[in-house]
């Protein structure tokens, strides 16, 4: 191992954690054997006065750590992004403010980071498993996004510096970080670790949000550079269906003299035509926005240039 490599540890603090000093010392003890210089960054996301005070105490006591505080809660993903901006390390580790895996596993994860850009912990035994044995969230994500990751909600990840620099997260996108990293061409590895029963996590937030997040992620990962492929596909399908039904009804009215009054289907088919046109129009506006900002948000990331 090379000397003086730095590991930045970003911990978003989402709850009141008066006992955060214990957490800090256990993380520190677990990671010191890796030989890295440790840079702890705590991002207090919102008004958590007790957590903030506990961290202040810790820092006054001589611990080397950095405290960042959001004046209001922006969510875990934004907290991570904030932390990444201050991270100096060659590697960046993200950890939860509630221990999720056994301490002795942390060093192992850091070691694995030599082989791939993102190391994702997979908790064993799994946390928050439905009675059927399948993790609902991951199952849903697999269904929609075709992801092969089976513990996306685990907050324990090790990222190479370039991942932390290149990927911007907001909202609830931290769950999808491995997937987003993959679409940027980074290698992602899952490592089985022993879980720590926390009892506090499990169901985080309402279910509907998760569904919306997955749909958003699907759109952002697949179609952000070609919005019209997405909107246009749906829009034209609905428009065509509506148009066909309308044509049929009009045909039947004219040729077989079936009165339209018996066919409220005409309203439905016209409604589909209208909806189709609306979706297509919205998609075209999306395309205009993409076009206008192409120069600022490039499609591609150049790894290096050989002169």
């Amino acid at each position, binding site marked *: 191992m090379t000397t003086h490599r730095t590991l930045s540890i970003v911990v978003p603090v989402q709850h009141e954690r008066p006992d955060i000093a214990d957490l800090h010392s256990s993380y520190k003890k677990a990671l010191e054997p890796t030989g890295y210089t440790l840079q702890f960054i705590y991002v207090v996301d919102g008004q958590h006065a007790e957590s903030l005070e506990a961290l202040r105490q810790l820092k006054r006591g001589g611990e080397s750590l950095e405290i960042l505080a959001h004046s209001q809660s922006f969510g875990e993903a934004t907290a991570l992004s904030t932390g990444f901006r201050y991270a100096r390390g060659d590697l960046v580790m993200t950890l939860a403010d509630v221990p999720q895996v056994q301490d002795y596993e942390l060093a192992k994860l850091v070691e694995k980071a030599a082989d791939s850009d993102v190391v994702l912990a997979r908790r064993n035994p799994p946390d928050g498993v439905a009675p059927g044995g399948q993790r609902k969230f991951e199952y849903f994500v697999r269904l929609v996004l075709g992801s092969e990751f089976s513990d996306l909600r685990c907050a324990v990840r090790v990222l190479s510096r370039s991942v932390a620099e290149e990927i911007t997260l907001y909202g609830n996108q931290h769950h999808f970080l491995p997937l987003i990293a993959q679409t940027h061409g980074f290698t992602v590895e899952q490592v089985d670790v022993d879980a720590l029963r926390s009892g506090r996590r499990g169901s985080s937030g309402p279910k509907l949000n998760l569904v919306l997040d997955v749909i958003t992620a699907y759109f952002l990962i697949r179609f952000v550079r070609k919005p019209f492929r997405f909107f*246009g*596909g749906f829009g034209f399908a609905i428009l065509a269906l509506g148009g066909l039904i309308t044509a049929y009804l009009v045909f039947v009215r004219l040729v077989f003299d079936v009165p339209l009054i018996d066919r409220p289907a005409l*309203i439905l088919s016209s409604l589909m035509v209208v909806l189709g046109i609306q979706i297509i129009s919205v998609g075209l506006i999306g395309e*205009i926005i993409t*076009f206008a900002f192409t120069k600022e948000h490039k499609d591609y990331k*150049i790894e290096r240039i*050989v002169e």
Partner: protein
Amino acid sequence: MTVDLSVICPLYNEEESVALLYESIRDVLLTLDLRSEIVFVDDGSSDRTFELASSLPRQADNVHLRIVKFRRNYGQTAAMAAGIECAVGRVLITMDGDLQNDPGDIPLFLAEIERGHDLVVGWRHKRQDHWSRVLPSKVANWLIGKVTGVPVKDNGCSLKAYRADLIKEIPLYSEMHRFIPAMSSLAGAKISEIKVRHHARRFGSSKYGFSRIYKVFLDLLAIGTLLAFNKRPSFWLGAVAASSLLLSMICLVLAAFDALGPEGSSGILFGGLSALFGSLGIFLIFLGLLTQLIYTTTIRHFDPVRRLAARPVIVDSPDDIAARSSLSQTKGMA
């Protein structure tokens, strides 16, 4: 040090052909008395393309080699966009990395640019491909010409030459490389088309299989919108909104007519339709206002394109013409 010419090749799993490609391009460039560079863009190849390209000489006489590496495969458009971004020449030439284009055509393209064109497009007039690839592409080209108003016979030919300051301002994303001529017309580019030689693939199989029709269709509609938007921000929405409102009016009249009629049959139906299309018309008008908002907030992104389109019209006095013709005789290719 200014570079006169950059040749850009996207490479994706071309380990068999990369060395051959380099040599054939270099040999052509060496015959030209220009400072030139070759830009290879490795589009996330999984084979040894990058290693082999890196082992090629970086500098051969006045031909420089630059290799841009992607971390993963982003597709041909992105590779070309990256090559264009990294190239420093005054004139840029893009070509396929699979030896289907003939580097021997490069001087022809250069001459056409020197003649004052902004964009020179190759036309593979004798394509060495199976008809199942040629036919869809012919249909697509005809359609592209109709919709964009830029009749180019072969949009799919990678061999193109550009004035660098023009192409660097054109946004390239998704699979837009097919529409470069149309996009360039945004900036009022003078486009020329020349016949090029086309070879059948020598190694490997085709990597960019012909995309499904619906993709081209959707992309085309998007491009058509962008072209129209650039000229008149609330064009198509206005037209669709107007026809929708017209339809609404017709339905309203029919509804009134039916309600007055003896049987009073389909009045409710037509009333409903009238309301439906009326609401669509109003929705589209508001959407049109939204596009105005986008236009005013993003206008600076369209500005460079406009600036290129604006060219001073120089009216020469007879003395000037005489002076220039004598100058060009002494200067040759500049």
